[in-house]
């Protein structure tokens, strides 16, 4: 499961801020709700989102049970050299998803 959309510019100017947008399909179960049989439904959320660039972590988020289903994440960063951007989502029940995008830096 886990179906992610990302929007990362292929080419950016050196040192200029650019936006990264990511949307992943994922349920949101708080862990506080009881099912029809009276037992708690296990928590099922994305716990952590990370963005690495050429292997270095540049951005991360720790998510809690109030996060929306299908969380949409957008943030700005700058790049000084060309490289590979890796977006990674991890969550309950061993959930993991990854998307990569190459970025070319021009001067």
């Amino acid at each position, binding site marked *: 499961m886990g*179906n992610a*959309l990302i929007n990362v510019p292929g080419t950016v100017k050196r040192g200029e801020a650019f936006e990264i*947008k990511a*949307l992943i*399909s994922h349920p949101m179960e708080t862990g506080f709700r009881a099912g029809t049989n009276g037992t708690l439904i296990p928590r099922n959320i994305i716990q952590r989102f990370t963005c690495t660039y050429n292997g270095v972590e540049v951005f991360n988020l720790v998510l809690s049970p109030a996060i929306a*289903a*299908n969380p949409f994440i957008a943030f700005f960063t700058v790049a000084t050299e060309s490289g590979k951007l890796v977006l990674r989502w991890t969550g309950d029940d061993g959930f993991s998803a990854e998307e990569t995008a190459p970025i070319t830096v021009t001067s």
Partner: protein
Amino acid sequence: MTSRRRFLASTAAAAAAAVLAPHVASAQAAAARVVVVGGGFAGTTCARTLRKLDPALSVTLVEANADFVACPFSNEVIAGLRDLKQQQFGYTTLARDGVTLAHSSATAVDPGGRTVTLENGTRLSFDRLVLAPGIDLRWDGLPGYTQDAAERMPHAWKAGAQTLLLRRQLEAMDDGGVVVMSAPANPFRCPPGPYERASLIAYYLKTKKPKSKLILLDAKDAFSKQRLFQSAWAALYPGLLEWVGLSAGGKVTSVEPSSLTFITDFARHKAAVANVIPPQKAARIAELAGVADRTGWCPVDPSTFESTLQSGIHVIGDAAIMGAMPKSAFAANAQAKACAAAVVARLAGQGVAEPRLINTCYSLVAPDYGISVAGVYRPTNGQLADIAGAGGVSPLDADAAFRAQEALYAQGWFKTITAEVFG
């Protein structure tokens, strides 16, 4: 008689006499005046019902247009299956019920002074005001989508010239062209409307331009009659109609009218024909009257439809927040009748019985394929809430004969409601 009118009457006569003989005082007073703004399904129904319930009332309906153009079935006009004339209704029959028609638009409301000012300069006094103004499109709600843009990317969400514009654009499109539609987040007029429209445009493409495709970009992941629509699309329009929900990146964040392009956070969709169903709000007069809240819609008491923001002003139809009850013609008609009864009761100083309201919405997925949803609503905690177990939707596994029957019922419903409201 309202308590206020009774008070005025009692000060005019001797106070003791009014208390001892209120019937004499009310018989001598002028007829109570009700002004209804908006001649759609809600307003027209309400004006006529008011006069039927109390023929002594003075009822004025304010409507600027000479003819009403009905939205239900206008998606069939877009798909070339129906003539716009079949959507048009006049107001000539209102006189028969003793409703006075003011052919103008309301430009101001003074809630304290209890007057409505019209564009033609007339000022109407009221004891109770019913606002049924319908919707305005939010021209600030979708970047790039202006009134000028609507000439290139029609909304067709108010039936009439826009309906025909979208139809002409579809007719002029080459076979192989991509039609792109966008649907807004809730709430908006006619919740199943975008999906019926996508279905009927897909029907047009399938029968007339089979190399074409339709993409429906949606700001939501869930919509009215979703399973019924989606199973019908899979059966009738596979590969032709593509629905892109919020979690698949369907939310349109801006449009570019010059290139007929829809922009989402993740993609650009260039259209040959573009239909933008933009975000909406209660029509401007509701805001001017002080009955719209920050959401742009009008909160009301669910039993009387009286505004919770201004006493003496009722709001019905698409402009109001009705809790679980959708913005539909059927709902507007039901609310209008309950509102008329509440207005008459209030004018007589009586209590208002808690209403039960019914809504039914038919949608056509193809000309001979109808589906429906019905609901029954009651006031609960200040809102209209769905009565669990009442109503329901068409079965998911019905056969073609059942769908054809529902398409006939849809036609029958339209004939019945328009005959009742405008006939």
